[in-house]
C-alpha cells in the first residue's frame, strides 16, 4: 500500500464559481475548463516541491472549493 499518504488536491465543483485563483497560483496543479471553472490536472497528485503552491491555492479560494489532503 505504497500509495497511502499521497498528497492530493481536489476541486469541489459544486462550490467552484470560477474565480480562477487556484489556476493562477498553481498552474501545475489546476486548469480551467471551457466554462472557466477549475479542475485538477491529471490525478491531482501534488508532486514534491509543489506543496506550498497547493496550500496557497487552498488559502486563496474565495468559495472554499479547493481541498488538500492525504488519500
Amino acid at each position, binding site marked *: 500500500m505504497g500509495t497511502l499518504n499521497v498528497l492530493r488536491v481536489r476541486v469541489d465543483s459544486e462550490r467552484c*464559481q*470560477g*474565480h*480562477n485563483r487556484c*489556476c*493562477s*497560483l498553481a498552474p501545475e496543479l489546476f486548469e*480551467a*475548463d*471551457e*466554462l*472557466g*471553472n477549475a479542475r485538477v490536472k491529471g490525478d491531482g497528485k501534488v508532486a514534491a516541491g509543489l506543496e506550498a503552491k497547493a496550500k*496557497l491555492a487552498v*488559502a*486563496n*479560494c*474565495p*468559495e472554499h472549493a479547493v481541498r488538500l489532503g492525504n488519500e
Partner: protein
Amino acid sequence: MSKHPPVVDWATDFDHRDPRWVENPYPIWDELRGRCPVAHSDRFQDGAYFPSRYAEVREIAYDSEHFSSRRVIVRETKVPPQPAPPITSDPPEHTPARKLLLPAFAPQVIAKLEPRTRALCRELLDAIGDAGTCDGAVDYAQHIPVRLIAHMLGVPEKDGDLFRRWIHLVLEVGISDESVILPTLKEMSVYFATELKRRGAKRGEDLISFLLDAKMDGQPVPEIHMIGTLRLLLIAGIDTTWSGIGASLWHLATHPEDRRRLAADATLMPTAIEEFLRAYAPVTMAREVVKETTVGGCPFKENGQVLLSFPAANRDPAMFADADKVLIDRAENRHAAFGLGRHRCLGSNLARLEMTVAIEEWLARFPEFRLADGAKVTWSEGTVRGPRRLPLALG
C-alpha cells in the same frame, strides 16, 4: 429626487451618497462593524440594510431563497425590475443565462486579449508623453475598459463618451433620481437593437455575433434577453475596471515605498493586484429581500433593499489579518472583490488582465509619480467606487 441631509448616525440612517462615505468609507465601516454589524436606513424605498462584516455579506450572497438579485442597485425610489441577465437572474433562470456567457469569458479566452490590452495602454501612455502631469483617471484608466469592451462587442471605440454617460446616469444619478433610468435603458436598448440588426445581416468576430448564434437550453436566445445581457456587459465592464485601475494608481501615487518596490520587482505584481482588489474593491452590489429572514441576528423585512458591500467584507478584521493595511505581498487573500457564490463577476478574468497590464505598462513608463501639488482627487458615488479625478505629477 430629494436632497439627502448629512448623516448623523450611520447605524440607523446610513447613506452611501454622503460625501464622507464617498471620500473615505473605511472608518465608517470599521465603526459599524464594532457596534452594529447590520446598519439600516429609511432613506431608500422600503428601507435598506447594510451588512459590514464578511460573514453576513457571504451568507446573503449565498442565499437566493431570501435575497433576490432582481434589483442589483439600491435606489431611493425603486423602478420596476429591468432584467439584465444573468446579473439580475435568480435560480432557476440564472444557470442557463450564465452558462451562455461563461465560455466567452473563460481565462484561456481572455488571455488572448493581452497583446491588444498592452498596445492600447501604450497608446494612451504615448499620448500623455512627457507632459509631466496628467490625470490618471481621465487620461488613462477610463479609456482602457471602454476600448476593450468596444472591441469585444464590435462597436465603435468613439462611442466611449456615450457609454460613460449611460453608466453615470444608471449607476450614479439614478440612485437618487429614478426618472433618468428608464429613458437611459431605452436608449441603450435601441443602440443594441440596431447593432443586433447589423450583425443579423453580417456576422463579425464579436460578442454580439456570438449571442446571435448561441443557444440557451437548446433554443436561440430571445432578442430581449440579448439586449438585457448586452446592456449588462457594457455597464459592468467599464467603470468597474476603470475604478480598479484608478484606485491602484492612487495607492501607488500616495505610497511611494510600495510604488518603488513594485516597480523594482515584477514578481510582486500578482499579489499586489489582488491586494488592490481587496482593499479598494470597486463594486457594491444589492439584493432585495423576497422572504423575511434573520441574518447576523438582525431581521430583514420583505421588500427591503440590501447594500451588499464586498468592499466592506474585504476590510473585515475577523477575516483578514491587518485588514486596514495594504500589503502588496499578502500571500493569503481570500477576498470577495468579484463577489461570492453563483453571481461571481463574469468579467473577473478580463478585469484582472486589464488591471495587471495597465499597472505594468504604467510603471514601465512612469516609475516615478505622485499626486500633483494641490491635487483634488474625486471619487465616484454609489455602486462603483474609484477615482474620477486623479491629477498626477510624473517623473
